[in-house]
């Protein structure tokens, strides 16, 4: 394999992981972590301008290019946040230097696994990459080694493993469907050839395969009722990992699902994958919106909010058509940016307060104005208030649904409103009112948080025409 941007996106994290595994010293490794993430991001950006042609294992097209750039961007900003967050954890002794080395190596390995899943041109390779991503995140969720963290890691492990096992069965079935048409061997697992010839596949096999894939990768997306691992994993792991899980890993699993959806869409005799995704999306949205009310742990609350938004995104892609797909893509991007920004804020808030219990937080805008208002801004964005980016994308989802299926739109709006109210109810306690809990000064780096929020804010007013054209193009490909 010759050296090009695609292999660089994979090689940089791998080399960095190997380096970070042996390097001692916190400051140095945090900087190398940032540097590697930055390099990956820049390389990913270069893919917009020129990309190598598709190989049997790797390929980049308009669709996954968006995902790769988003992943590496949030990966980079999270590494900046992680530097200040982990520094604090080290000070208070929650993490030891050995675990830190492990943490940084795992961080880069996770970046590698996600990038590999995205650029894989082979359904088997993609599966292996998602499995690797699951493993690394399991290890990181359990890194504090408290009782709760281990239990969360175990739960995530078992449910995630069952999920990817089902996804593998689906993958095997897709191969079985492709084999009579394409012939034995590697070609029958290569995306680009699968998608070309999918029209001739046996529709019944494809249907069963998609059900397995939906359940399998759907577990990783966190769709209800397969979401049980998600809140625990978000709440008990280090906050940078919560940010990466919510902002990126869920997207990667969704990407896998989208690819298979495209495959089914090209076969007229196969079942329409849309309604299944619409149903699971709506269930996730409404369920998570109600669950938001009863949360006492701040990270758990935003984890449920992630389920809600993954539901909206899955719904939008399930509806299909250029407009809904466009809205889905936009919403996914906005959600990744906003949710990781919120987790950046929440991470520092939890460090200041020394707890994640919402009841022990209060009056943040008075005690820690920057952090408090950052969180307020983030929640305003995630709840979908105008004029921010998520309002735009939710508006698009709702209007495109109203035009085609008004009844579904009513459920959608209902779920959105319920979630909206819950978020503001909680925000009111956390950000305003009497100051409660510890009031230490936050030693935080606010740059990543406000960088994300600024992007989301800007997207509410102005989307660059090049981006719009790109998304429209991808939306057309998605069918």
């Amino acid at each position, binding site marked *: 394999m010759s050296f090009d941007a695609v292999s660089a996106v994979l090689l940089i994290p791998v080399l960095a992981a190997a380096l970070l595994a042996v390097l001692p010293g916190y400051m140095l490794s945090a900087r190398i972590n940032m540097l590697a993430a930055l390099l990956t991001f820049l390389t990913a950006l270069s893919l917009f301008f020129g990309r190598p042609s598709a190989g049997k294992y790797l390929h980049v097209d308009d669709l996954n290019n968006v995902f790769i750039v988003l992943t590496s961007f949030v990966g980079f900003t999270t590494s900046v946040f992680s530097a200040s967050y982990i520094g604090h954890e080290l000070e208070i002794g929650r993490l030891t230097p050995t675990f830190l080395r492990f943490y940084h190596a795992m961080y880069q390995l996770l970046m590698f696994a996600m990038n590999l899943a995205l650029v894989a041109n*082979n359904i*088997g*390779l993609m*599966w*292996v990459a998602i*499995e*690797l991503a699951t*493993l690394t995140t*399991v*290890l990181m969720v*359990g890194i504090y*080694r408290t*009782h709760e963290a*281990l*239990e969360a*890691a*175990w*739960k995530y*492990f*078992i*449910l995630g*493993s*069952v999920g990817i*096992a*089902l996804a*593998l*069965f689906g993958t*095997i*079935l897709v*191969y*079985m469907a492709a*084999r*009579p048409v394409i012939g*034995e*061997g*590697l070609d*029958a*697992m290569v995306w680009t050839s699968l998608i070309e010839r999918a029209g001739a596949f*046996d529709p*019944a*096999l494809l*249907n*069963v395969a998609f059900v397995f894939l939906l*359940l399998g990768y759907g577990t990783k997306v966190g769709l209800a*009722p*397969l979401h*049980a*691992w998600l809140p625990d994993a978000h709440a008990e792991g280090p906050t940078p990992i919560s940010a990466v899980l919510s902002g990126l890993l869920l997207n990667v699993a969704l990407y896998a699902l989208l690819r298979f959806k495209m495959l089914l869409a090209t076969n007229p005799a196969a079942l329409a994958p849309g309604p299944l995704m619409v149903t699971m999306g709506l269930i996730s949205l409404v369920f998570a919106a109600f669950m938001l009310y009863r949360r006492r742990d701040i990270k758990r609350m935003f984890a449920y909010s992630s389920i809600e938004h993954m539901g909206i995104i899955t719904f939008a892609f399930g509806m299909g058509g250029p407009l809904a797909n466009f809205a889905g893509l936009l919403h996914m991007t906005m959600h990744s940016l906003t949710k990781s920004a919120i987790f950046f804020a929440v991470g520092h808030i939890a460090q200041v307060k020394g707890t994640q219990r919402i009841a022990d937080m209060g009056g943040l805008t008075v005690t820690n104005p920057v952090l408090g208002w950052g969180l307020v801004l983030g929640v305003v964005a995630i709840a979908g208030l105008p004029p921010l980016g998520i309002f735009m994308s939710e508006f698009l989802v709702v209007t495109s649904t109203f035009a085609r299926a008004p009844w579904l739109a009513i459920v959608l709006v209902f779920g959105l409103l319920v979630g909206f109210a819950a978020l503001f109810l909680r925000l009111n306690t956390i950000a305003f009112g009497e100051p409660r809990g510890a009031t230490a000064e936050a030693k935080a780096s606010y740059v990543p948080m406000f960088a994300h929020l600024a992007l989301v804010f800007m997207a509410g007013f102005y989307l660059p025409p090049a981006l719009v054209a790109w998304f429209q193009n991808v939306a057309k490909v998605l069918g």
Partner: protein
Amino acid sequence: MRGISFDVAHLLAGTLVLVSFLQLYQDRLYALLNMFALHALVLALSVAWQAYIQDAPHLYVTAALALVFKAIIIPVALHRIIARLGIHREIEKVVGVGAAMLLGMGMVALSMVVMLRVTAEADPLAREDLAFALSVVLLGLLMMVTRRNAVGQVVGFMSLENGLVLAATGAKGMPLVVEISVAFSILIAFIVIGIFLFRIRERFDTVDVQALDRFRGERG
């Protein structure tokens, strides 16, 4: 040629389903581990036979992996862990033996109905292999759901995974099978190391089994 190779493959895959049933009603951990070793042994034979009849030497790697890793190393390691951690020897189960067996039969029937119907066009060996494989997968899921104990759940997961390897090797000429089986072995090794390092004993009892229950409901 077709006759004997077909029959042996069929026999081995059927045996795998049978051993899955044997696992389902074990209520002592050591016996369960022995049954799992047998399961892995049958899998190794089945994969080796597929390697032979498909003339695919790389599958011997998968067979060897199943034999050495899953039939020997993992059961021995789990034996030691159980002995050293003093985990309860009895397995708490959510449903009784009778109900579990009935559910298991339902699973097998389900997979036959689903798989044989949708693979009408495929060659007979592959389609029956696939039906057996799905049965093993579903029985593994059932085992995970009906066990409260972490080791029991892990064994359930491993036998589920054996079903997947059976499916992958039965799909003629499928690429990356060896890589996938290696990836799975790493996963399992992680689980076993995880149990040992973290010394998680019965704290697993609080693992939300309900979630898995819902899972099965979704499929069934």
